[in-house]
């Protein structure tokens, strides 16, 4: 009986303090954080770049993976915040550079020291964050949108690395490298498209 009373007392405030039902998010969408999540998920260039770099870091082992995981997301956020007041950069060029770098590292099975992997993760994060930040400032969802992007980068790269770290079979590591060669090829074609369009 006493327990039931305690539960009723606890439930009362919960009922009285219930949040208003927000069924009409037409104007705000799902909010800036989720806008950021969606922005990353729909930016194929960003997704491919993170995928390739996470595969690369995962294949290099846990030490590389740990540094890459935190610095990629942190760099993304820092680059975004830095670029918020800047005008929009040339997205395609920078995206292509990231694709070339991440895909090339994976395809050629590069074996840099841990410090270099960390620096590359930070650089890639800053580069893409810069692009995102400059773009998002016009859409009015920054800086929470940037937080959503950085969190998604973290979760996505962590998931890919977690799947890649245990890979030992030659075929599976080779499949990852083939994916890297595809990303490199896409990056190269992107650069071509960019120059073609500019000319």
């Amino acid at each position, binding site marked *: 009986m006493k327990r039931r009373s305690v539960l009723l007392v606890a439930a009362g405030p919960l009922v009285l303090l219930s949040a208003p039902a927000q069924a009409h998010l037409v104007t705000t969408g799902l909010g800036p954080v989720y806008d950021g999540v969606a922005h990353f998920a729909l930016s194929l260039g960003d997704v491919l770049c993170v995928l390739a770099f996470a595969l690369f870091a995962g294949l290099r082992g846990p030490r590389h993976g740990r540094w890459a995981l935190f610095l990629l997301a942190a760099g993304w956020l820092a680059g975004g915040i830095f670029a918020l007041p800047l005008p929009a950069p040339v997205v395609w060029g920078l995206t292509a550079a990231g694709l070339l770098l991440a895909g090339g590292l994976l395809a050629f099975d590069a074996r840099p020291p841990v410090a270099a992997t960390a620096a590359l993760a930070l650089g890639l994060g800053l580069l893409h964050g810069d692009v995102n930040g400059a773009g998002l400032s016009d859409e009015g969802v920054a800086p929470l949108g940037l937080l959503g992007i950085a969190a998604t980068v973290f979760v996505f790269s962590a998931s890919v690395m977690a799947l890649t770290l245990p890979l030992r079979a030659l075929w599976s590591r080779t499949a990852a490298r083939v994916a890297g060669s595809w990303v*490199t*090829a896409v990056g190269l074609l992107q650069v071509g*498209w960019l120059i073609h369009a500019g000319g």
Partner: protein
Amino acid sequence: MLKLSFLFLFAVALLTPGVADAHIVAGEAAGFLSGLAHPVSGLDHVIAMVAVGLWGASLGLPALWLLPVAFPVVMAFGGFLGLIGVPLPATELGIALSGVVLGAAVLTGARPPLWAALAVVAVFALFHGHAHGTELPPGQDGLLYSLGFVIATGSLHALGIGIGVLHRWNWGRRLVRLAGGGVLGGGLFFLWEALA
């Protein structure tokens, strides 16, 4: 349980209707699917890319994966050259020759040093990529187009590798060589056309 699965799939199908693309401008790169279709639209490209996989599988490791890794990258470099307007002479001849040389290599079971096999594949990839680069229509979404294009190329290699792994059995070896003969025949036909 099966009925439930069907109901679920039906519900998913109902909830994810396709977009009606009633106004695609003719000749325009319409993204991923256009890119995916482009490499398989020409048989001269198809036989050469399948032959790369066949030859790689016949040569065994590490050529099995090195050739299909090298081909897309060099092909994309050729595409890049084509896109920025750098000319490459006798492109059609080079493409036709790729079918002849790669087909002959599979047919005869040629086993050159790895670097030589890589060089052969890279040179021909350049021709194929350049042709694609100069033929690419102005796209609405270059990234999606490029991705579809590269995936189609890789899938053709995978098809060749899939057939090529039969090489470990005697009957399979004959089948792989027969496929090489087919590629050679196709290459000779396209060579004839290129020279005519």
